[in-house]
């Protein structure tokens, strides 16, 4: 060892213990704060519960009935499914403005392939799902390989897909009665299971399963971890061995497929195939995602948060309507409550650090 290093003799006998401090976290409050900190999706859950309670108190059994509560689930099913797609994309620091358009085009494909070309509904559904996957692939390819900004790519694709939808469908609505008679499979997600007053559609069940599955995949598989890493810092992810392109393309394709499922669920919900649906899916899905605490800058947040976020909006909407607020007042109050919900979220997070 060179003489320059002789001060290092002082190292002999240095401590090898892990640093430890008094554990200040004994109290319930502290433990609660810590729980909030490590599980960020608890925050929107709490906001959700609080708003449920408030509306419950104000409205009584009109709101706190199994019927009304499951109605909220049905009303958020489509937004929730699209929001799941949006969440995965936003976790990579992207954004998908074409979700609504993909959803509608896929549902139109399912409908028209059955009725215009006479394909068996199973095959038409498969074509619809493939259509979603293709749209997603184009998004992903442009973003990952051509390195174009997601916002612009999906903005352009939104217009392209929507226009294609209008041109292809010739604005024809396929009527509910016809579907029920000839291809009930298309309405599968509209089937109901009744438990007492509670009504669960297959669409709602699909949403819950989808969210649980994505939560598992994002948390417990390598692919999921890579999604977070790409959203966090794509350069660092690339340098540390993540195939960023492959992840991005797979994310946008997955989003496309989920949107196609949303399109299928949409047929179940409204009964018919209508090319003018889904115009608000973008903004509503993004709202759900952000209220759910997923950062638009990527890499932070959980899909459960999105689910609670969508429910919060659903609860506010139904609650305010039942309270008798008219449409513009409802918009106004929902605007205020969106800001309020996020403010509460921020506040709880701050307390919990």
């Amino acid at each position, binding site marked *: 060892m060179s003489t320059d290093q002789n001060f290092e003799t002082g*190292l002999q006998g240095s401590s090898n213990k892990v640093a430890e401090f008094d554990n200040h976290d004994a109290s319930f409050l502290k433990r609660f704060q810590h729980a909030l900190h490590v599980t960020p999706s608890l925050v929107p859950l709490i906001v959700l519960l609080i708003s449920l309670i408030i509306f419950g108190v104000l409205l009584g059994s009109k709101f706190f009935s199994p019927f009304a509560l499951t109605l909220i689930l049905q009303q958020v099913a489509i937004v929730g499914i699209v929001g799941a797609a949006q969440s995965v994309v936003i976790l990579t620091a992207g954004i998908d403005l074409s979700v609504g358009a993909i959803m509608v085009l896929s549902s139109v494909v399912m409908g028209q392939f059955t009725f215009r070309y006479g394909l068996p509904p199973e095959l038409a559904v498969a074509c619809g799902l493939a259509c979603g996957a293709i749209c997603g692939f184009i998004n992903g390819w442009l973003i990952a390989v051509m390195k174009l900004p997601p916002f612009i790519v999906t903005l352009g694709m939104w217009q392209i897909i929507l226009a294609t939808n209008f041109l292809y469908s010739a604005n024809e609505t396929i009527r509910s009665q016809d579907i029920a008679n000839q291809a009930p499979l298309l309405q599968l997600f509209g089937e109901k299971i009744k438990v007492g007053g509670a009504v669960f559609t297959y669409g709602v069940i699909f949403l819950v399963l989808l969210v649980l599955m994505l939560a598992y995949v994002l948390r417990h598989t390598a692919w999921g971890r890579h999604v977070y890493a790409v959203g966090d810092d794509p350069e660092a992810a690339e340098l540390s061995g993540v195939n960023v392109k492959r992840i991005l393309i797979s994310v946008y394709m997955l989003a496309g497929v989920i949107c196609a499922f949303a399109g299928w669920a949409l047929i179940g919900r409204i009964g018919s195939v209508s090319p003018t649906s889904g115009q608000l899916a973008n903004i509503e899905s993004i709202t759900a995602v952000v209220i759910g605490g997923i950062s638009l800058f990527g890499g932070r947040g959980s899909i459960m948060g999105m689910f609670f976020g969508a429910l919060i909006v659903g609860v506010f909407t139904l609650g305010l309507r039942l309270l008798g607020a008219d449409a513009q007042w409802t918009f106004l109050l929902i605007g205020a409550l969106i800001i309020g919900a996020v403010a509460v979220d921020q506040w709880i997070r701050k307390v919990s650090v």
Partner: protein
Amino acid sequence: MEPILKGRGLVKRYGRVTALDHCDFDLYPGEILAVIGDNGAGKSSLIKAVSGAVIPDEGDVYLDGKKVNFHSPIDARNEGIETVYQTLAMSPALSIADNMFMGRELRKPGFRGKFLRQLDRPKMEKIARDKLSELGLMTIQNINQAVETLSGGQRQGVAVARAAAFGSKVIILDEPTAALGVKESRRVLELIQDVKSRGIPIILISHNMPHVFEVADRIHIHRLGKRLCVIKPDEYTMSDAVAFMTGAKEPPTEKNAA
């Protein structure tokens, strides 16, 4: 003598991690105080707490004997405390000159500066180039380069130059030579001596023992979030200091030995 900058009972927790654990701190006028300690001992947290970059959970900071409540680094800067943070705190997309004068831009004289509020770019660029030359950062080819295009060491050089140019009361340097080359490190040490000779006290965090023992008047040894002891470099050897900070030896009993 009254310390110019003083901390008492500082506590800072991050979730379950305790970065500062009732830590005390003293900086006397005109001295160079080195702060040494293991990685994660809480050195950066300490200087952030005294420079307004984080607000401590408990404890007080005194400047010139008066209690101060810094709510942001701007407050500290307005009191003449200039800090080079370990993360350097620069805007990557802006130029070197823009970064050096951030928050204290120079305006053109006369009408254009007063009413059009136009910046005096040539002057700022000239000063920036001069300050960098003083530090011997000759490999910077273009003063209008964005900071993100600089090498790690060049970036650090820019941050140090900024602090040295503007600090009037206290200058805090958090590992200023970590990424610097031999030549550039030497210049920084010379600069530190230089600043000291202007009567401004300096806090220097460093892992480089030879540097620390060369320039420091007193050495604050930090361990597990608190001040373990303060020693004078001529009373102890480097190997003693290393032994204290790593817990291999017991520190001298009179805590404020030096």
